[in-house]
């Protein structure tokens, strides 16, 4: 019998918009991507109710009941300790057992990382996992010619060693090669200066190791200002720094929108000016819309886990499913192994 399609386990519970939005995203995937099956993990009653009202192809969808979940406000280790059958954990177990090939979750990020750590194996040669994310830049990248760069780690490993940073570089490069269709992605270390000697000892040591490494297009250090410029396709840092950068980027974006709203409301000429710019602003928004990427990976494990934004709507979830399927069919894990 001809087998087998790629099965993506969707953690349906715990996102900001509730189960229905995740179900809608998976439903969209079921008729857009014939080679992908969605395994919806969560409260079966809620899933069924949402599915019945949503256009979908039931041939490519199945449901796994898991009524417990980790809420956004919960402490991951405590919550997973109490909820042995939390949806994110059940989804990860289904992947570990081979019933599914990858997990997509828009729930609690810490719970996602912890579910991976408890269920999957680290790839040999990797000591700590990394949470990656894409962000919009002013440079176009890869054969897809999209404006997104990858930054990792943004929170999984707070204290990364030099070897961890090297591993992050290898993983990020493999991911950009496969998902962003960028055959030779440039990889940089985030530091407080472009010179090789700049930065804390672990960054200096990582720089030296990466500079000697074959098969990786290491372009040296970049500074914070280079992140939105898109100077490198992949930027590596430890989870503490990465998380601060990520939140800074989000905060700047939100502030710009708030300022524009303020200007729009305060003076007629600003209102007219912004109205004239609205088409261009919409195009800019479309180009840099993170929902087209859907999610970002937790890298370092022998299985694929895509973390979607907690505020993801159906389109972002469907795209996260496509990213997960691509990571599986392109054998991202093998590419990382080879890179090490």
């Amino acid at each position: 019998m001809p087998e087998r399609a790629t099965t993506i386990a969707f953690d349906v519970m715990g996102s900001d918009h509730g189960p229905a939005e995740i179900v809608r995203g998976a439903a969209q995937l079921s008729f857009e991507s014939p080679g992908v099956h969605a395994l919806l993990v969560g409260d079966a009653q809620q899933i069924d109710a949402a599915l019945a009202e949503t256009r979908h192809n039931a041939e490519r969808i199945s449901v796994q009941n898991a009524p417990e979940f980790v809420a956004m406000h919960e402490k991951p280790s405590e919550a997973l300790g109490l909820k042995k059958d939390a949806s994110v954990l059940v989804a990860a177990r289904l992947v570990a057992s081979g019933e599914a090939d990858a997990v997509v979750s828009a729930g609690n990020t810490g719970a996602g990382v912890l579910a991976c750590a408890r269920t999957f194996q680290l790839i040999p040669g990797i000591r700590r996992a990394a949470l990656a994310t894409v962000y919009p830049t002013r440079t176009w990248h890869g054969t897809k010619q999209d404006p997104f760069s990858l930054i990792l780690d943004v929170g999984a490993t707070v204290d990364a060693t030099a070897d961890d940073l090297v591993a992050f570089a290898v993983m990020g490069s493999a991911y950009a090669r496969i998902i962003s269709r960028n055959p030779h992605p440039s990889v940089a270390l985030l530091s407080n200066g472009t010179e090789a000697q700049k930065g804390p000892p672990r960054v200096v040591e990582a720089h030296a190791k990466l500079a000697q490494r074959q098969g990786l297009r290491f372009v040296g250090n970049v500074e914070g200002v280079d992140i939105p410029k898109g100077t490198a396709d992949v930027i590596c840092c430890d989870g503490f720094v990465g998380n601060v950068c990520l939140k800074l980027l989000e905060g700047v974006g939100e502030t710009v929108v708030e300022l524009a709203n303020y200007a729009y409301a305060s003076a007629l000429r600003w209102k007219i000016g912004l109205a004239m710019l609205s088409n261009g602003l919409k195009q800019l928004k479309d180009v840099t819309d993170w929902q087209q990427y859907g999610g970002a990976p937790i890298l370092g494990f022998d299985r694929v886990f895509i973390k979607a934004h907690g505020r993801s709507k159906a389109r972002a979830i469907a795209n996260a499913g496509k990213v997960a399927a691509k990571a599986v069919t392109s054998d991202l894990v093998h590419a990382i192994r080879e890179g090490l």
Partner: protein
Amino acid sequence: MALPDRIDPRPPRRIYRWDLDKTYLQTDFDTLAQLVRTALQKASEKQAVPGAAALIRELRAQGDSQLCIISGSPTQMRAVLEEKLKLDGVEWDELVLKDNVRNLLRGRFRALRGQVGYKLPVLLESRAKAPVDSEEVLFGDDAEADAFIYSLYADLVAGRVDEAVLGRVLTAAQVYPDDRERIITAWRAVPRSDPVRRIFIHLDRLTPPARFGRYGPRVVPIFNYFQAALVLLADGQLNPGQVARVAVEMVQTAGHNLLTLSNSFQDLLRRGLPVQAVAAPLFQALEGAIQGREGVLQALRPLPDIVAAFTRRVAALGTTPPPPEAREIDYLSVLDDARPRTSKHRKAEER
């Protein structure tokens, strides 16, 4: 005593009524180009919906049955459609097509797309000729008004709809006076009984199943004909081996696999359809078939994988929901379903 000079066939115990386009045939005619392409297709180029031909063959193999096809395709396509049915090994008793040239010449433009004024009289006139105790299973799709028309037909024959409601429905559906007269006359001629057991709606447009909830549990939206076969197995109209043969046709001709079939099975369970009880007999039939008694089922091996996949789908749900409750249909609240669908309607529904 003189012997009769001919032996009449036994009257049918079961009547299967099928629509053609999007129910039996994979047809696209939403645009003019697609319509032209469909009209020019040869019989060999037409594709049946996976499993549809096998299901009809298996239903007919039960004996004492009749296959009545009512299609909105124009009468000019009769030869091609008959050839296609023959190619698929489908034997039919009635094949009614729409005389749209006549509608055009008479300036009856509403009738070109109208469904109620075309299908309802044909169904009722056919029923008037059928044995009172014969049961019916109807097959349609979600592209037009099949769920509405079939349900109305079933309730008219059963005497659950009165003439006032019928009148309002026919007005809402903009049925021409002569068709209206035909419907009323045929309805009065039909002996009252409650023959319609199931109405299967093939979800060609992937319409959300909940939209058919207002028609009650008699209407079963299906994503494929394996699902219809499973429900008919639960209803006692097919045996497990026959269901397996429908599955095999889908595997062999349309790339279905264990995943799509077991997902389809679970989908029915989640909608409260009584198919869990038929899983065990189905596995037994498959086991017997795979061990050589029916070579046609070789495509579905290995059996342990099949059993495991279906069992997992059942276990994954924890508890299965109760069957949907029977309800009376309020036709006046669903009158919109009786009106012809425009492409604008369809696009809105797909959003």
